[in-house]
């Protein structure tokens, strides 16, 4: 009897759609058709993931906002039940990972987040506007003085966030190839677990060494600020190192992708590009940033959570211990929240998108990301009004396996 029931349960699991789903050929920016279908049919339904478990997949905008602010929904991957890990590697390291802002709930999360929040205060980020503008201007000068066509990814998209996060953290930019390579590997779903582990270890060792130097010779940067907290006994050295690695990783690949793919989308939509390029109103550029964040929603693995109590929502009962996958792209293309979601419209009110997540875990670096994108989008197309793709979209190589979506290179000419 029990076997029959188990058999029936596994048959049901077999019939569930498998997550992640592939994007449609020729539609590099749209969510996968199977995701759109799920949202239309039932914005809270079950999927099957790599380990055979069957978490709930949440695809509706309003449902996501309700669940991501629900105290019965936990980001702690050690909570009892079936936390839906992104990869086997992430599952393996969970028990060795210290408590961080990404894997804790209130009140511990509140304590940790407030501790690392200082450098990301809106006014401190705003003070970085002039230095970031200088970085962007310099990189565009170099690109224009160099070979034409150029790869926008290596000429601008990667160096901007790398230079900015290096300066903010106090990490030597000269090491950027090392940390770009290793963070990309650490986040690659298709990478072998041992390769991801080696990459993470290399980054931790590097940051630990650097933190050691900041303990004795502090500078005016975030690592030194954390070193001060370690000395004061407010933070453990391991917490500081993990936090440093997280900021380094989160700080560049995401923004780089928004620069390259955002530019690609604008080049494909010349009337939208003209609005961004020709407007004197900084609100248009800021609006374009929000719309491109919504449209692209580059985090492609979904936020992962587990229920700590039964939750009745959207006509379903999520049981305590059930896993949840919150697919941000799906919510940002939910026509109930954003009419005509497949149209890029830089003038639409897009600010309530979930691209940075929602709830207490919403992206720590979002104000910095916004500032970098506003400066790049507000500068590049004015300085290089003839900018165009030096290849066809069909020939571009998109990254379907990373935590964030992306493009391997973006050849442009002017």
């Amino acid at each position: 009897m029990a076997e029959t029931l188990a058999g029936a349960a596994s048959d049901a699991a077999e019939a569930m759609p498998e997550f992640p789903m592939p994007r449609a050929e020729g539609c590099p920016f749209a969510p996968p058709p199977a995701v759109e279908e799920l949202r239309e049919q039932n914005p809270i339904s079950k999927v099957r993931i790599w380990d055979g478990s069957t978490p709930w997949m949440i695809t509706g905008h309003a449902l996501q906002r309700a669940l991501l602010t629900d105290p019965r929904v936990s980001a702690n991957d050690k909570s009892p039940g079936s936390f839906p890990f992104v990869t086997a590697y992430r599952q393996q390291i969970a028990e060795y990972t210290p408590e961080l802002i990404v894997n804790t709930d209130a009140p511990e999360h509140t304590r940790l987040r407030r501790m690392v929040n200082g450098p990301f205060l809106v006014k401190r980020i705003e003070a970085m506007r002039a230095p970031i503008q200088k970085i962007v201007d310099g990189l565009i000068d170099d690109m224009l003085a160099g070979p034409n066509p150029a790869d926008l990814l290596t000429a601008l998209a990667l160096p901007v966030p790398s230079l900015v996060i290096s300066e903010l953290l106090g990490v030597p930019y000269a090491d950027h190839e090392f940390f770009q390579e290793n963070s990309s590997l650490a986040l690659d779903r298709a990478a072998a677990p041992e390769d991801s582990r080696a990459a993470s270890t290399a980054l931790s060792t590097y940051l630990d060494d650097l933190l050691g130097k900041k303990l004795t010779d502090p500078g005016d940067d975030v690592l030194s600020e954390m070193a001060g907290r370690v000395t004061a006994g407010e933070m453990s050295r391991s917490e500081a190192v993990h936090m440093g690695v997280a900021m380094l990783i989160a700080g560049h690949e995401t923004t780089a992708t928004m620069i390259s793919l955002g530019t690609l989308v604008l080049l494909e939509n010349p009337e939208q590009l003209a609005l961004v390029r020709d407007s004197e109103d900084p609100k248009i550029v800021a609006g374009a940033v929000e719309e491109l964040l919504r449209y692209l929603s580059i985090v492609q693995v979904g936020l992962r959570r587990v229920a700590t109590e039964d939750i009745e929502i959207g006509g379903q009962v999520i049981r305590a211990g059930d896993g949840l996958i919150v697919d941000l792209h799906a919510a940002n293309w939910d026509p109930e929240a954003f009419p005509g979601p497949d149209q890029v419209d830089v003038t639409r009110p897009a600010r309530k998108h979930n691209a940075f997540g929602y709830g207490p875990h919403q992206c720590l670096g979002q104000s910095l990301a916004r500032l970098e994108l506003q400066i790049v989008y507000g500068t590049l197309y004015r300085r290089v009004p003839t900018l165009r793709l030096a290849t066809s979209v069909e020939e571009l190589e998109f990254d379907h396996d990373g935590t964030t979506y992306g493009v391997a290179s973006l050849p442009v000419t002017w």
Partner: protein
Amino acid sequence: MRVELDEPKCVAAGQCVMASPEVFDQRDDDGVAILLEEQPADELLDGVREAVAICPAAAIRLVDQ
């Protein structure tokens, strides 16, 4: 209209400051929101409404008094 800020719920994301800098600020040490204007002038209410809509902690309310 009166603005209510539920400080213990605040996750210090600073979104209210971006939406409505006249009405909200952040504490220097940890970024927790500070209410500058409990009863903002009418012309500031659109910004406050945006802050209410985008606050990731749903910690801000605009109430009729």
